């Protein structure tokens, strides 16, 4: 198992360490998942996300290459801007979902899920070298070891980071990047996140990660584990690759269809030809119990119409919420369906995410 540069900090805080995508990561601290979740919704929390991968795409064809390789349109990014995107295969599905930042004109930073770094790297390299429509004048390399990554999220997060930063961050809008220093340590701040809250993702040198973590701890930012990260992203209605999205998921059949831009792209025809026999929907359950990954979704007659991909109980509202792929006939807002929890159907209503808006 690999360890992030913050491993000893997590252990010192009595974080409960688990194996996740090849890494030892804290699932929670003694604070507990609901309290960590509420800290992010009401104040500020921080997450070690150094396990995520960073790939560099460098060269004069960076923009046209990533425009071909991904579903959003990185060619539209100006320097110091980022966008959520997806990496598609040519069989009507996905390889990963991504964040793509353009740091300077001919350099892009692609942030991929930890479990998919090798697949994303291999795919991008082979697409770059392919004779049609390439080869593209780009180099794609794995820079994951060069970066530690902290996410600082919550309504007070930006102000807390701003007080520590040497640049004025108030002008750094959503999806923008800025290079600055915190207590003399160089950081790249992106106004992005995975919780639905305002905040920054802080790229730094691995050697500085522990000092920055402690600086934020002193500033009153609550350490949060992967457990709260999952409940927060689910409440915000964001997908998690490996749950909502996989190599057979058509993003056009999800609430994230907006990612897919109308321009030539690898595999796009397969996505368009695929149609949507099932759709990814949000569910709000009426009864007790958590609709967990893999549970069956039923119509009112008890027929099998889909599968839950993620579920939790919102620590804010105590409502049981879930994301699920269901037959298109039952995917409209307000549709009455059920989730089978331990053999019993629990009534649910199709409800477009997000389940919470700050």
């Amino acid at each position: 198992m690999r360890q992030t540069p913050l491993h000893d900090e997590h252990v010192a805080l009595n974080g409960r360490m688990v194996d996740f995508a090849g890494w030892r990561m804290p699932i929670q601290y003694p604070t507990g998942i609901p309290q960590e979740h509420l800290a992010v919704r009401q104040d500020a929390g921080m997450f070690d996300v150094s396990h995520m991968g960073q790939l560099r795409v460098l060269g004069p064809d960076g923009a046209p290459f990533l425009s071909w390789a991904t579903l959003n349109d990185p060619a539209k990014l100006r320097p110091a801007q980022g966008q959520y995107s997806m990496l598609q295969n040519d069989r009507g599905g996905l390889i990963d979902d991504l964040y793509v930042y353009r740091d300077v004109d001919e350099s892009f930073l692609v942030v991929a899920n930890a479990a998919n770094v090798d697949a994303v790297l291999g795919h991008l390299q082979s697409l770059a070298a392919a004779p049609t429509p390439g080869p593209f004048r780009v180099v794609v390399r794995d820079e994951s070891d060069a970066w530690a990554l902290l996410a600082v999220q919550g309504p007070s997060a930006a102000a807390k980071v701003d007080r520590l930063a040497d640049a004025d961050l108030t002008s750094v809008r959503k999806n923008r990047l800025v290079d600055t220093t915190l207590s003399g340590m160089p950081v790249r701040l992106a106004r992005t996140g995975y919780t639905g809250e305002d905040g920054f993702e802080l790229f730094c040198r691995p050697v500085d990660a522990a000092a920055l973590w402690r600086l934020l701890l002193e500033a009153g930012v609550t350490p949060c584990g992967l457990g709260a990260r999952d409940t927060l992203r689910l409440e915000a209605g964001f997908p998690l690759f490996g749950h909502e999205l996989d190599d057979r998921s058509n993003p056009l059949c999800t609430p994230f269809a907006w990612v897919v831009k109308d321009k030539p792209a690898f595999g796009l025809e397969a996505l368009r030809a695929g149609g949507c026999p099932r759709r990814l929907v949000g569910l709000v359950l009426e009864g007790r119990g958590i609709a967990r990954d893999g549970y069956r979704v039923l119509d009112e007659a008890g027929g099998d119409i889909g599968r839950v991909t993620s579920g939790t109980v919102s620590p804010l509202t105590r409502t049981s919420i879930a994301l699920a792929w269901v037959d298109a006939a039952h995917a409209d807002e307000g549709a009455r369906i059920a989730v089978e929890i331990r053999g019993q159907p629990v009534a649910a209503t199709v409800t477009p995410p997000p389940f919470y808006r700050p």
Partner: protein
Amino acid sequence: MKIPQELRFAASHEWATEPADGIVTVGISDFAQDQLGDVVFVELPDVGRSLAAGEAAAVVESVKTASDIYAPLAGEVVEVNGALLDAPEAINTDAYGEGWLFRLRVTDAAAWGGLLDADAYAAVAEEG
């Protein structure tokens, strides 16, 4: 990890008080609540239901997982802790007190002596 000396335990991590007028109170151990993590829902048995020893009686659901809770002794459910429906976190904060689950009128009060004592349970918890 707290293991009160006056309680007896099942290897499946439930505790039971010594029978008083044939009634025992049942909950889950501090070790069990710690393993489960933050409890968000509880399903309790119906009052009047007859349970065999080892029969699934309740469900404690945390953010991480849903776990069946088994009757440590045979008996009839005479009371349930309805406060847990609104405040299930009591299982985390006070596993041996406010976090109790249900009370049983046991079929055989002597069977309580056959459960694990605190030392024997500590050994079970140590192994996970």
